[in-house]
């Protein structure tokens, strides 16, 4: 009974404060919002209680747009502006669709549902002029509920890149069923499992108007146009269940660690090899998938080699190249990755739930990746038990890094103070 009452109290106070700056969190803010960071960095919670905040983007004046995976009071896009106390203040919400992708380019705000991409004209303060009447740029993209979110990135040449995830784990006839054969060629790749390129300013484009820019990518959630290299970088979510489906080849430890979560630099026409191969960072090889004649060891030289390979199942949901000056030199042009955190490592301990960093030099990774911000999950590192799960990343106009959480809708701001 006591627990019940405490529970109810907690619940009602949560609801009261949901979506507002939370006074009791000041303590937490002094504590870097519960995060562990490299020396000299501080973190604060600038917004919280908005539910599933997926990707975020900032305006030149520090306004922030957030795309929601679950509607907040009936709306799927939130617009915040900086308030005097350094927090974010919600000023408007619009768009009655859920989704993941959001980006600002050429005077427009771009946002995606799980099947379409819209754009909203911005005024000179980068505020949406007419929230009710966006232009529909792309329509009719596949949503078969598995890997259905559409992430977006734009280049400087009037193109928009859209991830269309494969609605499958390993292209088996029956998804995730042990013993069910995989298809070759994998028919899914015609309309999913890759990145599609469209024009950023044409209306109502469908598959036939776009091109399949890169294929063999099972599912990409984090992607970014790297202005230093003038090329697209993507983070792939690698396949699951090597042990469940092939227990004679992979024990649970190998299955937790493999395959690598890969960062690829993508050029037009590239093929990263899903479902035929996966990458193994322990031996630095492209391994033939067990469904396609592999034995856990056989490798191939075919297909794209990743720029960086991380341990398995960390679920990279956000990618942001750092082009600002606030952080120390080491971070310049490097990549931040938001790892949503694993589920497919069970029964081994789960991993991820942090923001990682990879230094870059001359457009190539330069040195080992490291954990940059940790502690989002709190005491319980599991998909349901985690307090927060990092999802989106964005760079503010002052060079701070913003991180969104799609579990409770917290937005963190990480700054360097010397």
């Amino acid at each position, binding site marked *: 009974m006591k627990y019940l009452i405490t529970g109810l109290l907690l619940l009602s106070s949560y609801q009261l404060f949901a979506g507002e700056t939370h006074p009791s969190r000041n303590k937490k803010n002094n504590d870097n919002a519960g995060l562990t960071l490299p020396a000299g960095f501080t973190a604060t919670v600038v917004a919280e209680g908005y539910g599933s905040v997926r990707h975020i983007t900032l305006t030149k004046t520090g306004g922030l747009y957030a795309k929601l995976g679950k509607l907040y009071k009936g709306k799927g896009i939130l617009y915040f502006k900086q308030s005097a106390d350094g927090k974010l203040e919600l000023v408007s919400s619009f768009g009655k669709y859920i989704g993941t992708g959001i980006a600002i380019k050429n005077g427009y705000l771009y946002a995606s549902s799980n099947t379409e991409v819209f754009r909203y004209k911005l005024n000179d303060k980068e505020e949406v002029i007419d929230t009710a009447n966006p232009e529909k740029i792309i329509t009719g993209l596949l949503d078969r509920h*598995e890997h259905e979110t559409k992430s977006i990135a734009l280049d400087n040449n009037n193109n928009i890149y859209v991830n269309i995830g494969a609605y499958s784990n390993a292209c088996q006839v029956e998804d995730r069923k042990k013993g069910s054969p995989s298809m070759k060629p994998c028919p899914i790749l015609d309309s999913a499992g890759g990145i599609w390129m469209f024009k950023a300013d044409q209306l109502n484009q469908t598959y036939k108007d776009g091109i399949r820019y890169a294929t063999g990518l099972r599912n990409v959630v984090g992607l970014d146009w790297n202005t230093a290299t003038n090329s697209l970088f993507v983070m792939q979510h690698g396949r699951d269940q090597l042990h469940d489906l092939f227990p004679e080849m992979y024990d649970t430890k190998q299955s937790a660690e493999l395959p690598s979560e890969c960062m690829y630099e993508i050029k037009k026409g590239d093929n990263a090899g899903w479902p035929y191969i996966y990458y193994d960072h322990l031996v630095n090889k492209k391994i033939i998938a067990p469904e396609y004649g592999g034995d856990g060891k056989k490798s191939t030289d075919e297909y794209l080699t990743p720029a960086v390979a991380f341990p398995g199942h960390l679920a990279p949901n956000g990618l942001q190249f750092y082009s600002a000056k606030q952080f120390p030199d080491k971070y310049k042009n490097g990549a931040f990755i938001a790892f949503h955190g694993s589920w497919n490592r069970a029964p081994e301990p789960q991993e991820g739930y942090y923001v990682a960093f990879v230094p870059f030099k001359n457009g190539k990774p330069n040195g080992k990746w490291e954990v940059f911000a940790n502690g989002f999950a709190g005491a319980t590192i*599991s998909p349901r038990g985690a307090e927060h799960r990092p999802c989106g990343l964005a760079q503010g106009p002052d060079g701070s890094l913003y991180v969104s959480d799609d579990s409770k809708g917290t937005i963190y701001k990480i700054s360097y103070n010397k």
Partner: protein
Amino acid sequence: MKKISYISFFTATSIYLFAQTNTLQDSIKRGKVVYNKVCLSCHMADGSGVPKMNPPLTVAEYMNDKKKMISIVLKGMNDRIPIDDEYYSNAMAPHADLSNQQIADVLTYVRNSFGNKAGAVSVAEVAAVRTPAKPAAKSVSNNTINKKQ
């Protein structure tokens, strides 16, 4: 070693005999082994599942409906209907290669774990959902599949 004795335990002939002397606790114990091997990777050790991907195994709508549960294990589930207001985007594959005994045990385990408190599932109930007409026929051939793994 445990695995080997486990598999040989459930040969086609012993299933039926063993079922006769089942106690609830024995069934839960065996069910946990099946769960850890087959279901845990998606539904997690504590049955809490994965938000947006794999549902928790504590949902009354399913826990109160043995037939539905049996049928989900046998035929898989890819309905993408909301469960307690959330969609679960993964596909659950069919697990018809499990024997009737294994399915009865694993569901009995689930129904008595993670805070659930519901009755045991019997081999006969699984058989009735698997092959309504002639219950015995299929579990034999499925055991052959089991041995090959």
